[in-house]
């Protein structure tokens, strides 16, 4: 995933102890974090602290990272997830809310204020969300879950 300005690239493939930041212009690895697992990463838009969220499927945590100039990554304090197996994250365009899909069917709602990140609530859609895909489009949400599919799409448009 590229940073919003295209200068940095984050690389994670779900293996343990593997999250990289790459300086795209220089084609160099700037940070290699060996202390966390990241199944999915998401840039939080419109965040003055350049917050990045990483879903740690193994440890049931959301890692809160900061992307600095030059593509350096810094770890903050992780947040425990309300469900088991966080697999996908989608931040809403306002940068104040992010949704986390878990393997157990739980959708967690993250509240973001500057560099402060915490789960405000969660709900369960059931079914197998192992391949859940989240798409954030607006400030509000409507779930369009298809429990017969292994890939569940949650489209945030209105509600």
């Amino acid at each position, binding site marked *: 995933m590229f940073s919003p300005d295209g200068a940095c*690239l984050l690389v994670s493939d779900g293996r343990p102890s593997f999250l990289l930041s*790459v300086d795209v212009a220089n*084609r160099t690895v700037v940070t290699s974090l060996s202390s966390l697992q990241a199944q999915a990463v998401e840039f939080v838009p419109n965040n003055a602290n350049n917050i990045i969220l990483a879903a740690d499927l193994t440890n049931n945590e959301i890692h809160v990272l900061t992307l600095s100039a030059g593509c350096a990554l810094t770890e903050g304090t992780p947040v425990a997830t309300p469900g088991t197996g966080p697999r996908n994250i989608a931040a809403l365009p306002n940068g104040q809310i992010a949704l986390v899909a878990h393997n157990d069917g739980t959708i967690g709602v993250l509240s973001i204020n500057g560099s402060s990140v915490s789960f405000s609530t969660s709900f369960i859609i059931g079914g197998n969300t192992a391949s859940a895909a989240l798409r954030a489009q607006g400030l509000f949400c409507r779930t369009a879950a298809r429990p017969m599919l292994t890939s569940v799409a949650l489209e945030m448009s209105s509600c």
Partner: protein
Amino acid sequence: MYFREALSRAFFLATLSLVASSALFAQKAQLLVTDTSAGTVTVFDPGLGVIATITLPPPASGALNTIAVAVNPSKTLAAVSNFNANRIDFLDLTVTSPVLTGTSVNWLTVS
């Protein structure tokens, strides 16, 4: 476990990267699809016609496994991750037929 999981996911989901219209594209590429087992990236135009299929360099050992692709915000550059090779290759999307560009990033060499 993670390797098997990733491979399984890769086979189920051809990695897609939707690209919005941009004047920067010489041929209005709209979609990039990686074939994980073939080690290729196919670039489609808006009518789903194939603009190019790019075969990425193989790893030193084993098969290439192109597991994901990302496009930069200005839609001029694509990054393709190769699971088995531990490598990121870059594609120039500004030319008529996208090609590999510049130095790849290999994280096994990170100190």
